[in-house]
Every structure is written in structure tokens, then in C-alpha cells.
């Protein structure tokens, strides 16, 4: 491929093509997480004992992780702001903070999970722990995917290329954030 086709450059709807596609991608992601969470909720309603199992989760670690993720979204917004100004180098630095936030999230999560597995609450224990590890694991995969995408876009932005992509990875990162905002109360707080 040399250059983009005319199709990519047109914008009949007025919304830039990349952003439009990203919203559709998020739409498909919402129903995937929606499927997991609805299945969990239906089980949760039918099983009172899930509340007891949930009391073994580490609410403090979850709360810290919520703050970490939300702060990393702030730097994603600042990166978008810098990219709008055409300052690719500044956007790169802010995006690196976002990636760092994602990494902190994963490190805290790994300590948390090691502790729980050590106590004997593994993926196989019962339906609550099936959902706990599956839903949070699916989310963690999205965190890793987002970190990779942000890193690639950040290095492009540093050279001043494809600055519009800074906004796109930012929107994606907010989505990852919002999913966690649903997971945290459902898996940790609802006792």
C-alpha cells in the first residue's frame, strides 16, 4: 500500500473515520463485557452466598487500583490536549505516564491475585471465583492491549506522525477505565 485510499480520507458523516470506527469497536466491546457482567449478575441474584465469597476480596487494593486507572486517564486527556496543539513530544510524555499507570495497575493486581491464590481462592474454587478471575482477567487483557496500542501511538506522536491517533487511544483507555468502574463495585464492594 502506497498512501491511503480515497475512501479513508472521505468523511461523509462529518466524524473522522478513525474515531467513527473506534466507537463501533467500543460498541462491540461493551456487549462482550455486558455478556460477562449480565451472566454474573444473574448468578449473583440467584446465589446469596456470593456475598460471603466477595468478602474475601481485597477492597483496599481494588480502590487503589481505581485511583491509579482514573489518574492514568487524566494524563491521556492531557496528551490529547498536547496533540491538538501539535506538540507531539509533549503528548508522548503524557502517554508514557498513562502506560506507567497501566503497569502499576497490573503490578498491584498481580500481588492481589497471588495473595488470594495463596489463600486457596483460585479460578476453580466456585462460580464466584470463576467470574471474579474471568471478568477481571478479561479486563486486564484489555489493559495490556491498551498499553501496547498507546506505546505504539506515543512513539509515532513523538515524531509528529498521526497525531489524531492520540485521541483515539485516549478514548479507548477511558473505556478500559469505565469497565473497571463497573467491575470494582460488582466484584469487590457488593458483599
Amino acid at each position: 500500500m502506497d498512501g491511503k485510499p480515497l475512501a479513508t480520507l472521505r468523511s461523509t458523516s462529518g466524524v473522522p473515520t478513525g474515531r467513527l470506527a473506534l466507537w463501533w469497536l467500543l460498541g462491540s466491546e461493551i456487549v462482550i463485557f455486558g455478556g460477562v457482567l449480565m451472566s454474573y449478575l444473574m448468578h449473583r441474584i440467584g446465589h446469596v452466598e456470593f456475598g460471603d465469597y466477595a468478602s474475601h476480596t481485597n477492597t483496599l487494593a481494588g480502590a487503589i487500583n481505581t485511583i491509579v486507572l482514573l489518574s492514568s486517564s487524566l494524563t491521556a486527556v492531557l496528551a490529547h490536549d498536547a496533540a491538538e496543539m501539535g506538540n507531539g513530544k509533549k503528548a508522548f510524555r503524557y502517554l508514557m505516564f498513562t502506560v506507567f499507570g497501566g503497569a502499576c495497575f497490573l503490578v498491584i493486581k498481580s500481588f492481589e491475585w497471588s495473595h488470594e491464590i495463596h489463600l486457596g481462592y483460585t479460578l476453580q474454587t466456585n462460580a464466584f471465583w470463576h467470574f471474579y478471575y474471568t471478568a477481571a482477567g478479561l479486563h486486564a487483557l484489555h489493559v495490556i492491549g491498551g498499553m501496547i496500542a498507546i506505546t505504539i501511538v506515543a512513539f509515532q506522536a513523538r515524531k509528529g506522525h498521526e497525531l489524531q491517533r492520540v485521541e483515539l487511544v485516549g478514548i479507548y483507555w477511558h473505556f478500559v477505565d469505565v469497565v473497571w468502574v463497573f467491575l470494582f463495585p460488582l466484584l469487590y464492594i457488593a458483599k
Partner: protein
Amino acid sequence: MAHAAAAHAHDDHGHHHEEGFIRKYFWSTDHKIICFQYLFTGMILAAIGGFMAYAFRMQLAFPGESVPLFGVVSPYEYNSLVTNHGTVMIFWVAMPVLIAAFGNYLIPLMLGCDDMVFPRLNRLSFQVFLLSAIVLIASFFVEGGAFGGAWTAYPPLSAKAHYNLTPAGSTLWVIAVALEFVAFLMGGINFITTTMNSRAPGMKMWDIPMVVWMIVIASILFMVSVGPLIAGAAMLVFDQMLGTGFFDPNRGGDPVLWQHLFWFFGHPEVYVVLLPAIGIVAEVMCVFSRKKLFAYKIVLYTAFATGILSFFVWAHHQFISGIDPRMANIFTVTTVLISVPLAEMMFVFIATLYGGSIRLTTPMLWAMSFIATFLLGGVTGIFLGASGADIYFHDTYFVLAHFHYTFYPIAIIGTMAGVTHWFPKMFGRQLNEFWGRVHFWVTIIAFNCIFIPLFVLGAGGQHRRIYDFQNYPDLAGQSMVNMRVFATISLVIMLVAQFIFIINFIYSAFRGKKVGRNPYNATTLEWVAPSPPGHGNFEEMPTVYRGPYEYSVPGRDEDYWPQHVPN
């Protein structure tokens, strides 16, 4: 065949550079080449799926006898053949051909642009699709053989290897299906974004050809419905591989959860493949009756209504799964309700034909037979949608005949209408009309001879998924055996008749009569491009001035008024 198309592709643009065979046909980002990749992969898998049907139908008609070209069908093989016939025909034939192949070919051409908005994503989508097909076929050659727990894969049968006896096959099956979903999510985002953002200047929403609309609505339906099943597929693989118990009631799980996740996707999926076929039929009917599509906007509104309603009917597959009877009543009502918009579409097509100058070409024959056969499939669906009648009909051959009367018109008749209609555009040559009609009549008569007896057998109590009916004296009477043999012989005739099509297709692609840009005097934009279109599709990007179906407009010299002609 693809070779012929792409060889011409280079004539039109001066700036081309020679590419190797692999780069041009396997690594291409051109939407037309990707269409051919999907089309031919779909056709090869249709042949595989048809061969599976042949093997297990022979076993049913002549139990225990050695089947020519296959050998004796064991009970395990029977199960995996039935399972994978269903899986292949829906996920690896109907979806890639109707949505991906026609979507890829028609969307950029009909919208008047040069390619999809994300050409590399498009290529990746096919590669993931191809990988999924390879994974599925590979499952036949692993220890224990291919998965045999039916295409619906209900747990606990699908979740535990000591029930289904296919430890590797069942996991490969789920992985193949999940990969296929990923491929179509990527393709769908491409289709939707292209249609929203890359239309030719002047093309408003109501100027988009119906088939493009239908493929886009189908992509949205697929995207919205498939998510829960992707989640369910992950849970099922965890149950199989990691020792979880999502679907195991002993450990706090629920087997019916899978049925909800599966059918929440599974029923909209019917409309995901139906709508593109309806769109193809609409295009063909307008061209060959030389009339404007009757009530363009109403067709669209009914398509939206169908799409929305399709999310509220899924539990009619579960009337005997122990759901609350009050719930069953609600789903009976929604199920009967969804026949209203579809009946409306059928009437719209009849109204489009009314008073037109109808030309019974091969694509038109296919399009009209779509209406006739799909009608029968739809009407028998009313029996099954009513929860009372369904308790008797559930899992009989009546159900089987019903959904073959819907899926066959969709996947085979709709595809044939499309392939024969756009063949001149794809290859720049005419498909042989005589052999096209011979193929049509043999196929359509044989198809009805297969499934009408199955309706009768099903109403007589013949249950699905039984390996050998001789073990059931009630189902082994001479008249039932006769009908089974009749259906099977009809199937063999129908399968053999497809060789007429294959030979006609290959011969016509290379040696058929050459045609110009617009052999049918049609109005939509794809007929503005050369046949076959070169790289970049149009020499000069068209501008749109009117709707897609301006045929027989009073006061004009010609009976068609193309979209791109200013006045």
C-alpha cells in the same frame, strides 16, 4: 478466476508496478481480491459441508451400509458430521459469502469509492477467517475426532470431555467459532464505517442501494448480538480446559446460561444472514422487472424493526428447557410478531414485480424462487414459535425442514442470485444462460424434494440427531423409510447438479461472452466502473444525483436513469 479479474485490473492505471502472485492474491488489500478470497473459501467449505450432509444422509437412508467415497459412518462420525455440517454452513458459508464477499465487492463499488476505509484491517479479517476455517478442519484429525455435540454446543455435553469423548475436538471447535467472530467483527466495523463515511459526493442516506443497507444493518446486528456469545465461548473453553464450572450446577453454575448466551446471538444471526440475501434479491428484482423498488423506505423501516425485534425472540429455542411458562408466552408473542415485518418485505417484492416488464434471466429466477421458498420456511416457523405446538415439534425433522427452508434460500439461493447477477462485473464475461437455467431448475426441484418429505417425517414424530432409525420400531415403518430414501436421493441429485454450476462458472470466467460496463442497463454505481473494475475502481470518481432505482421513468428516452448522470 481471480487471476482473470486481476489481470485486467492493471490495464486501467498507468502507475502500476508488477507484484508477485502471492502478494497480489494472498496479501492484497484490494477489496475485490478480498471478496474473491472470501467467495472461494466459502465455496470450498460449502462443498465440504455438502459432502458431510451426503455422508450422514446416506447413513440415515441406508443404515450401516458403506457410503461411497466415505465408508461406513460410525455413530461418533455421524455426530461430528451433523455438528460440523451445521457449523460450517452457517459460519463458514453463509456468513463469508453473503456478508463478507458481497459486502467487500459491492460496498465500495456501489458507494462510488476506491476501496474500504481500512484496507489492511480488511486483509487481516480474511486472514483470521482463514485461520478459523483451518482450525475447524484440523479438528477432524485430532485424537477423538471432531466435536459431535451439535452446532448449538449445549453444556454439559460440550463442556466435559468424558461426556462428549472429543477432548481436543470440542475445544478446537469453540476456538474456531470464536476466531470466526473476531474476523467478522473487524469486517463489520469496516463495512459500517465505509458506508457512513465514504459515499460518493451527493449520495444521501436514502440513495444507498438496498443491498448495502442490508449488509450494514446485518453487520450492526452481528456486532450487538455476538458479544455475549464471545463471553460464553470463553467460559466454555475455561470449563473444558481450566476446570471451571460456569455451566456446572454442582459448582454454582448453570447449563441454561449457555442456551441464553447462545440463542441471544443465534436468533439475530438468522437475520444477520437473511438481510443481505433480501438486499441481493431487491437489487436483482429491480433490474429485471425494470421498476423502482416498491416502498424503499418502508423496506428499510421493516429491516430496522426486524433487527430490533430479533433481540427479543431468542427463548423460543428453549421452550422445553424448563423456562417459566409465563416467559414462554411472552416469547411466543414476540416470535409471531417478527413475522409481520418479514411478511411486509415479501409483499413489497411482489408489489415491485407487479406490472413490471419481467425478464426471466438466471439471477431473476433465483430471486423469485427465494420469495417462494422463504415463504414456506417463514410460514412453518409460526408453528414452532407457538409454545404449545413447539412442545410437540421440538427437535423433530419438522424443525430441521423449517430452518432449511429459511437457510437454504438465504445461503444458497440468495448467493446464487448474487453471483449470477454480478458475474459480468466480477469477470467481464457473461455466465452461460442456458446452463445457468438448467442448474437452477435441477437445484430448486431437488431442494424441495429433499425437505418436503422431512416436514412430513417430522410431523410424524421423527426425531433429530438419531444415528439409526432401525432401533426405533415406530420410526422404521416402510413409508418412513421410503421418504428418507427419497430425500437422500434428491440430495445426491442436488449435489451432483452443483457440478453444472462449477463448470459453467469456471468456463464462463475464462471463455464466456465478453460484456461491457453495463450489460443489464442498470442504474447503480457499480455498473459505471469497467468490467472487471481495475485498481481504484473508477477512472473518474462518480457524483450521485438521485436514488438507486430510477427505472422506466416517464418522459425519458431510456428506461433507466443511472445515479451518476446529472440529468
